[in-house]
């Protein structure tokens, strides 16, 4: 390599930090980030559609009482946030080579996700018992049920997929088939699921709190 080329390359690296690896991440991590970008647009579109329908409707219902709906959804939020912390601990221990501590934290993360799903299923059953379906509900605009079940259902599917993904990584990491990068990538997915709920919870639940008797 001539001196001029070497100097030019060094300048490029200094200014852009690019070269052969501009992002400084493994391909799996970059792939997960790109997936997260696309999936955030999916959820963004759904939440904007929900807000559009709500804004244009004169009879959008506010059916969520403190108990069970708001209490359940608040505890569900606590479960997801705590499972994110256990996921951070799993990534931290995997990065520091403490292999024995990784799988228990991954299992704790799965437990947080499973608790979220059970509580969410109970919440759905409560609403269904009160007469809410995809096409109708006893409180107001018929679109409420369809949008509610679509958004929370898609999110719940992501939680379910995340639990399955965490299970695969936990087993593979225990068998030394996967490494710390794989734990970090599943962590990105799990935090994204948590992130989406941070918008679903206020927009869908807290904006529709029942204030009356």
């Amino acid at each position, binding site marked *: 390599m001539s001196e001029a080329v070497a100097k030019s390359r060094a300048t490029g690296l200094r200014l852009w930090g690019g070269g*052969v690896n501009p992002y400084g991440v493994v391909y799996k991590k970059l792939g997960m980030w790109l997936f997260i970008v696309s999936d955030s647009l999916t959820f963004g579109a759904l939440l904007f559609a929900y807000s559009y329908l709500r804004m244009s409707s004169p009879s959008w219902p506010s059916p969520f009482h403190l108990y069970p709906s708001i209490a359940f959804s608040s505890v569900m939020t606590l479960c997801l946030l705590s499972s994110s912390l256990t*996921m951070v601990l799993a990534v931290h221990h995997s990065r520091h080579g403490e292999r024995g501590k990784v799988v228990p934290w991954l299992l704790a993360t799965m437990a947080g996700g499973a608790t979220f799903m059970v509580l969410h299923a109970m919440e759905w059953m409560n609403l269904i018992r009160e007469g809410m379906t995809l096409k109708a509900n006893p409180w107001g605009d018929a679109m409420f049920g369809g949008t509610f079940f679509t958004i929370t259902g898609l999110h719940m599917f992501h939680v379910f997929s995340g639990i399955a993904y965490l299970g695969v990584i936990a087993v593979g990491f225990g068998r030394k088939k996967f490494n710390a*990068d794989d734990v970090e990538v599943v962590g990105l997915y799990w935090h994204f699921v948590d992130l989406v709920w941070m918008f679903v919870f206020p927009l869908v639940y807290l904006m529709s709190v029942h204030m009356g008797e």
Partner: protein
Amino acid sequence: MSHGNEALHEHPSVGMRPMYWVWFWLLAMTGIEVFLAYLQMPLRLMLIALIGLSVVKAALIIGYFMHLKFERLNLVLTIIPAMVACILLMNIFFPDAKRLTTHGVNRHMNAAPPAGGAAHP
């Protein structure tokens, strides 16, 4: 599983202490959101407050839990501005929602077109 580009991957070392703080603040902000929901605030003000808190929570999760704060600026600039711009562009639909409210058009009513005017296609 082996990786050919393992040596090129940077692993920024971040302690756990800030993560516990982030978790605490996320819980605290969630509590504030639930409290706000029970205040008799105007809907628009409540929406701004709740979305504002959610954006802060999202930034904390992305920055700390997802480690983006500790990644190269190249990665941040590739991911975040385009995503935020695309999401913000979806606001284009809200003037139409406002039009429907203002003109009293209800999608559940088979209302006749206004007298003397043609129905919109």
